[in-house]
């Protein structure tokens, strides 16, 4: 585990560099670090930002200095607190939070699935085979980012991997389910994007009026469920 400054108001805790070999194991470790650091209640720490192999620890340096820390020792002090928090957490570790399984309805109607034919062509499959494979797979939410609520999903079948568009689209509709290289994701908001869109969900992935504001979080398991155009239009929550 390596801890390095991310500017003067954050640190990056590097859990594992071998992400590609063991994404699921790495994610578990990242979420473990998040839980242990939440429990550690380190003075001055504002929030934690997990990503694939790292946890960003954001803190207020003035609050740290106000804990009688010399300006020259802020990084050492907070690094030590992080290490203590992780060691302590290890001892009391026992039960693990159970991963949620979230079902996401997707309508693969041609009007929504702008790049379904392109993905099918690339995979040398029929469009129907792409859809069947896509929805028969279990995915794992690796992290949330890019735009609020955007889930980066692991688990895309190798066959469906399709390169991003060389020129991103100026606008992709909210709810678009898409493939970018070996990753898969869902656009929560209308935004520009270069991924291949193969369907659309009526679910709202990001709602700033609720807390937590995002439907998904890192560590969730996800499964797509095909719905008809009519079910999409009349979807109620």
């Amino acid at each position, binding site marked *: 585990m390596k801890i*390095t*400054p*991310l*500017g*003067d*108001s*954050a640190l*990056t805790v590097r859990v594992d560099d071998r*992400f590609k070999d063991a994404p699921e194991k790495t994610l578990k470790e990242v979420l473990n670090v*998040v839980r242990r650091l939440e429990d550690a209640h380190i003075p001055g720490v*504002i*929030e*934690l*930002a*997990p*990503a*694939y*192999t*790292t*946890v*960003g620890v*954001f803190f207020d*340096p*003035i609050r740290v*200095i106000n804990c009688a820390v010399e*300006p*020259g*020792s*802020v*990084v050492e002090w907070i690094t030590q607190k992080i290490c203590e928090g992780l060691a302590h957490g290890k001892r009391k570790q026992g039960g693990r939070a159970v991963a949620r399984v979230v079902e996401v309805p997707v309508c693969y109607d041609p009007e929504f699935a702008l790049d379904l034919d392109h993905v099918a062509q690339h995979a040398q499959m029929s469009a129907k085979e792409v859809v069947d494979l896509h929805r028969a797979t279990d995915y794992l939410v690796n*992290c*949330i*980012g*890019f*735009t*609020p*609520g*955007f889930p*980066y999903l692991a688990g895309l079948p190798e066959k469906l991997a399709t390169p991003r568009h060389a020129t991103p689209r100026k606008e992709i509709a909210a709810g678009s389910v898409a493939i970018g290289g070996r990753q898969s994701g869902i656009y929560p*908001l209308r*935004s520009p994007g270069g991924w291949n869109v193969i369907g659309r969900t009526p679910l709202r992935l*990001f709602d*700033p*009026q609720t*807390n*937590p*504001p*995002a439907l998904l*979080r*890192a560590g969730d398991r996800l499964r797509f469920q095909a719905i008809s155009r009519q079910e999409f239009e009349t979807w109620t929550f």
Partner: protein
Amino acid sequence: MSLSLTRAGFLTSVQDLGRNGFRQFGVSLGGALDVFALRVANLLAGNDESDAGLEITLGGLRMRFEDKRVIAWCGGEFDVRVGSTPLPAGHSCLLNADDELTINQPKVGCRAWLTISGGIDVPFVLGSRSTDLRANFGGLDGRALRDGDGLPLGKQSEFSRSLIDLLREQRVASWSSPAEWSSSAKTETVLRIIRGVDWSRFNDVTIQRLTRDAFVVSSDSDRMGVRFDGPELRRNDDVDLVSEAVAPGTIQVPPNGRPILLLGDCQTIGGYPKIAHVITVDLPLAAQLRAGDRVRFSEVSIADAYRFLLERERQLERFRIGLSLHDS
């Protein structure tokens, strides 16, 4: 009570100290790009430091108030007037009902922060009143302000009321915040940096270039980041990094070699190498950069970064105490 914007300007939005606690859901920090300026201006208006004010980009505003308010502003070299009376930066100023306040284009710099006693009373969304211009929530209907908008103002503090009494005759207070706080704009800016985790991915020539050459600000810059047209920073290797947390101040280098200095509206995670970080105390300078400006980067130690930050925080504390003496 409210204020009405006859002209909303080039890009004006409601901002406070930003939205903490939701990075894990992909929500940007946001907030005033110069948090220090907003805090000072809030103190001068008799507000809490965390009240919401207006972030003004390149001016072009006209506004009217329904009732008496104390206002203050800090930032670039803007021409701010009520009628024909100039209102200098860093001063508490009285505005009467129906006065028209104008804010023209800055001679130097890019942004200013205007506070009004009582603060701008838009609803809190995820713990902040800041406008998220990318995800369209917070502030006024989640968007930049438009001509004709009305903004609700909050209840004024006792201190604001006593300032109104005090400024009845003179309109502009005789006291002010230190001049160097309100002239953060420069024609050639030096930003102090500390090393990023990927510093060693760059060869000596590139590092020399980063710390010696002047970088030209691109017109493609916004609240997410300052982009530079050149010179280019070449990487030793072209490995794809796994995305991880980034922060305001991070300087990342995409494959085209043109560095991007991230600001308050930056995304929460990114995959480009992080060559360096501008220290927090210099982010106000970065918020004043506009197209064509020249920037140099100068390396300091992280310990110095904290010393500078602590020194400025102590100055602000002294200023806060000095200001409260006017409350009698």
